[in-house]
């Protein structure tokens, strides 16, 4: 028998980070496409991109908090 020791909360945080990771990738990728197509709108796109990242990241951050309080 193999015994695995460690905090299960770590696994939970790892799972919580998958979705936001993919989401942030999509947000940034599309923002880069938008900036490349229309460089004059780069400032607006960048602001909106950071907003999108911030909202997507919230799930990973909640996972991070749960890791500490679990």
């Amino acid at each position: 028998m193999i015994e695995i020791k460690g905090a299960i909360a770590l696994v939970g945080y790892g799972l919580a980070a998958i979705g936001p990771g993919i989401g942030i990738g999509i947000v940034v990728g599309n923002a880069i496409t938008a900036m490349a197509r229309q460089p004059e709108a780069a400032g607006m796109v960048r602001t909106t991109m950071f907003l999108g990242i911030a909202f997507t990241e919230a799930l990973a951050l909640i996972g991070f908090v749960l890791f500490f309080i679990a």
Partner: protein
Amino acid sequence: MEQLILAEGACDPANDIICRPENVTELFNNTDVIFSIGPLDVTRTVFLIFLAMVIVVALLFFGLRSKRLVPSKFGMAIEALVVFVRDEIAVSIIGPEGVKYYPWLLALFMFILVGNLFEVTPLINFPITSRMAIAGTLSLLTWVIFVFVGFKKNGFGYVGALVWPKAVPLALRPLVGLIEFVSTFFLRPLTLAVRLFANMVAGHLMLTLLLVSGWVFISSVGEIGIRALIGVPWFVFGLGIYVFEIVVAVLQAYIFTLLSAVYVESSINIEH
């Protein structure tokens, strides 16, 4: 290789190559009192908070003191920072009204920036924003301001527009309203604080682990011989992370300020 991998139980304090700390929070807890002013005990963290305050005030004071026709290089840098916060954050997000909020945003931005950069400052090496008390207080301040602005500009229509959004189909309104209510009043301050705090904690831990373990391995070359070379890649990797952390420190200060501005804007214009 077994000697190199020292788990918690295998730690021998007499031959301390690497001992796992009992609890990582001791990296962030500075409970030793440096000096006391009356009833106020000043620990390292408290001292750094006041140091950050003094640095911010001094930067702004000496940077913007002399109104010369051609400012000095230092003055121009500070001016660029101030104009960046005013134009790129306050006015471009909140609109022309944003000029009213820009002193607050500037104070927020400068304090968080200096506090974050303490992480990579030699001899200090401790980001004060990695304490939840500071990140939490700053985000509570933002919360108070955007809720106050919302009620002042829109009265009780502020909450009404949140819990009963007109743009949503009738059947979905209670659900969307509930989500909006929770997300605005509870998740916003929480995520705002945790985003800053988590990034700084992770950065501080990573830097400490990589640089300290690299240094400890290299310096124990007399005891473990050629295997001490394992410390070199750690140290180099730590220096790479060091540069990365500078970027993270600036970016987190920017994001915190940007989101504060966005929250205030969403309190002023409740239509969307």
